[in-house]
């Protein structure tokens, strides 16, 4: 993996004039970091991710990936480095079956079919769904779809992975499986979620957003333990911490 990094400076954005959604966001994301972006619904987490991958270019401020500024000219080059996993896998997967969908990106990059095959194999193996290779998308379960939507971006060999609410609609087993898989990746990861337990298990660093801006940026361990801070911004302690902090919780729950 290369020494990729991402630098965001004074980023502001609005969908409609005069209603700013993101306000003056700055942070630096270094190689191999895994960063959780948390915050209540509607604070602009998804919008931030979409900006980072260049889905809206009319922002103020700057986004640089390895010193290359994100703009129309550099869009193609930058997108090759970034894999964006949609919140809704149904919108991400559009080809008839898993193989075709995973082959879509490498084929677009003009790779020979042998290499396409090799990459698809690699990607499916990375998320443990080799057996689903020929399966039609509409026959996949929710958890399988989520894994497939990660596989289809891995075929681009991205340096950066962005994920929007990856744990949504996953049952506990699929959720654990996803956490284990993500923790094996050594990409630079940015995960937007309001599932704090998920962030606790996958990210070392957390950025807390409120009202379109960054409230606090630090070690996940510090931020997710700060009950008062979280409560002020409409979030609750991760369950695992809650259990520790409130001794007797388990006993009470058993009554």
């Amino acid at each position, binding site marked *: 993996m290369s020494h990729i990094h991402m630098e965001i400076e004074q980023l502001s954005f609005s969908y409609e004039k005069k209603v700013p959604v993101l306000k003056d966001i700055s942070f630096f994301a270094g190689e191999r970091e895994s960063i959780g972006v948390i915050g209540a619904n509607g604070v602009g987490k998804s919008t931030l991710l979409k900006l980072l*991958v260049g*889905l809206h270019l009319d922002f103020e401020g700057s986004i640089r990936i390895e010193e290359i500024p994100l703009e129309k000219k550099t869009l*193609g080059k930058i*997108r*090759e480095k*970034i894999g*964006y996993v*949609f919140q*809704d896998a*149904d*919108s*991400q*997967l*559009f080809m*008839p*079956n898993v193989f*075709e969908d995973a*082959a*879509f*990106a490498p*084929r*677009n*990059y*003009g790779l020979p*079919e042998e290499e*396409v095959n090799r990459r698809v194999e690699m990607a499916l193996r990375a998320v443990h769904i080799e057996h689903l290779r020929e399966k*039609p998308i*509409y026959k996949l379960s929710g958890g399988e779809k989520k894994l497939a939507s990660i596989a*289809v*971006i891995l075929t*681009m060999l991205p340096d950066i992975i962005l994920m929007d609410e990856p744990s949504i609609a996953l049952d506990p087993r699929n959720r654990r499986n996803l956490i284990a898989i993500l923790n094996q990746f050594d990409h630079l990861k940015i995960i937007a979620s309001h599932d704090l337990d998920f962030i606790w298990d996958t990210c070392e660093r957390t950025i807390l957003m409120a009202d379109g801006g960054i409230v606090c940026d630090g070690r996940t361990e510090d931020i997710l333990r700060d009950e008062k801070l979280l409560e002020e911004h409409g979030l609750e302690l991760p369950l695992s911490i809650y259990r520790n902090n409130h001794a007797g919780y388990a006993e009470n729950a058993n009554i």
Partner: protein
Amino acid sequence: MSNISRTIYEIQSLDALAKEKRWINELHPLVKICVTMLYIGMTVSFPKYCLGGLLAMAVYPVILFTVGELSFRAGLRRLRIVLPLVCVVGVFNPFFDREIYAYLGKVAVSGGVLSMVTLMLKGVFTVFASYLLIATTTVEKICYALRMLHLPKLFVTQLLLIYRYIGVLSEEAGRITRAYELRAPGQKGIHVKAWGTLVGQLLLRSMDRAEQIYESMCLRGYQGEFYYGDKIKMRGRDIVYLCIWTAALIALRCLPVTEKIGSLFM
């Protein structure tokens, strides 16, 4: 299963059917498109009283259904929406054209009846031919062949996307009607008053979804052209298939022999 989920299922299973690995599916898509177009052209060009000759054209669908190991019943079932439409087209002919044209045993057959049957058969055959193409060829391959025929990139991509979006649209429709039905139990269908809002909802949601799919494509390097892995090579058997059908179809259409055979039954 509700109507809509059945529609989704059928679109998707047609897709799955086209992806199977039977030899007829593996034929070069360009060859299949050419044969299909030739067949439709020949079929439609029969004069309106020429039932005998037209009957002989049944050879093509019959052979393809047999050789392609496709279920004829399944085909009919899928076409049940289109077929009545096709048949309605000719239904007024008997009233306009009452002149006696032929005798079937002792029963007089008027020109109108004859032309009605001819018209209906043309419709049925054409629909079958298109079904046979779609059931044995994936949309991607059809588009690939259309690009080989130098149809504009934009047009071909549109076609492909429309096909993909039909799935999206029907899925959204399914979700909306299910949500409606759950909150209006015991009601048959959807109340007329709710139609406007539901259709509006459907449109908005589908547009949203379509936009996301487009974004997903762009994020994965899509630049207006679909790539299909290896170039599909024209092989010996493709040429043979094309030649045999071209010769057979032209013979069926042009040689008076077939009309004679047909008229034996009249």
